[in-house]
């Protein structure tokens, strides 16, 4: 398939109407022509540019200020710091996230993004500063966090039981949340037999099974294909619109256009 054909196919797959997708494809070809470039050289791989374009077109030019709808503070970090032995991982981190907001934590590898998220969850203690947090929290680690020999349904039962939900209800909730990520768990498939992306979907569902007010997500889309990636961000925005707070650790810079706060841990030092 040529670049425009793949671009068109991806737009349609992302839910753009046929006629509009064809028009956008023609425009894109003309834009490449006026710069005397081939489309791949100007815009990069067709599926990535399609995704980017869809996200850009969805954003209003004059965005209404979102803070008017923000809810109560659900997470508040003041002067939080963490040391390992003598090494300071980060220092003086301030972050406030309200209901209806999305915060992104960015920074180079090893700057403590995951540690900060674990501190927000309460799994790691900060060495300095103060954390205030709503009680109901969902945490999705970067990897692991599932039991390899259990099926998705059994995970729902287990995580539901921990939150005091009866098994039948936990399973139906899990199936419902999985469907929103375009996933239908196979009854007999164990977690270790799932592909990386599907296991992350399981991880996400487990994180929100007990309807937390605050979701802490540590690069949760590793192994996602583009369609799932778009589904994921749609899901994040629907959580936000439902008044929940979301903190996402990410290394993808183009995610940042749709979030309310960006915390750059790399710049802290």
């Amino acid at each position, binding site marked *: 398939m040529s670049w425009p054909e793949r671009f068109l196919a991806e737009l349609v797959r992302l839910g753009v109407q046929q006629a509009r997708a064809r028009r956008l494809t023609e425009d894109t070809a*003309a834009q490449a022509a006026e710069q005397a470039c081939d489309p791949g050289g*100007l*815009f990069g791989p067709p599926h990535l540019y399609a995704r980017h374009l869809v996200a850009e077109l969805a954003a209003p030019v004059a965005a209404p200020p979102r803070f008017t709808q923000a809810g109560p503070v659900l997470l508040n970090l003041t002067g939080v710091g963490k040391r390992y032995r003598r090494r300071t991982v980060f220092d003086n981190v301030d972050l406030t996230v309200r209901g209806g907001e999305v915060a992104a934590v960015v920074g180079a590898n090893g700057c403590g993004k995951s540690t900060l998220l674990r501190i927000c969850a309460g799994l790691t203690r900060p060495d300095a500063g103060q954390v205030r947090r709503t009680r109901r929290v969902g945490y999705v680690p970067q990897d692991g966090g599932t039991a390899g020999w259990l099926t998705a349904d059994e995970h729902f039962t287990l995580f539901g039981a921990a939150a005091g939900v009866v098994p039948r209800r936990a399973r139906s909730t899990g199936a419902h949340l999985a469907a929103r990520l375009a996933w239908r768990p196979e009854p007999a498939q164990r977690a270790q037999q799932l592909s990386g992306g599907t296991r992350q979907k399981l991880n996400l569902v487990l994180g929100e099974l007990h309807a937390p007010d605050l979701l802490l997500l540590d690069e949760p889309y590793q192994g996602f294909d583009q369609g799932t990636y778009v589904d994921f961000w749609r899901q994040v925005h629907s959580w936000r619109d439902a008044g929940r707070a979301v903190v996402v650790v990410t290394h993808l810079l183009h995610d940042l256009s749709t979030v309310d706060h960006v915390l750059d841990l790399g710049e802290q030092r």
Partner: protein
Amino acid sequence: MMPKPWLHGFLDLCLLAMLRERADYGYGLAQRLAAAGVADVPGGTLYPALLRLEEQGLAVPSWAPSESGPRRKYYEITPAGLSVLAEQSAQWARFRSGVDILLAPVGEAQ
């Protein structure tokens, strides 16, 4: 040159301002931005912004042949575009004067 995250917020405003001056096509706008010292905008950032202006009715496109090579899509600002531009330039002016005050060395601030 403008740092990338700044550009993201101001690209629409810059494009509308340039279109107010005269209708132009994508590559021409990119060159004007670069000449003004604002930014070297890559095609992957510029064209989605133009398409967005078009889809939201702030600019209308028209095709015109070029002396050399393929036909070009010229954009012209609409009345809706002009009002958004006016509104956003006022916001920008307020924002800029606020930042200027903060940036001015202590003692010189008015």
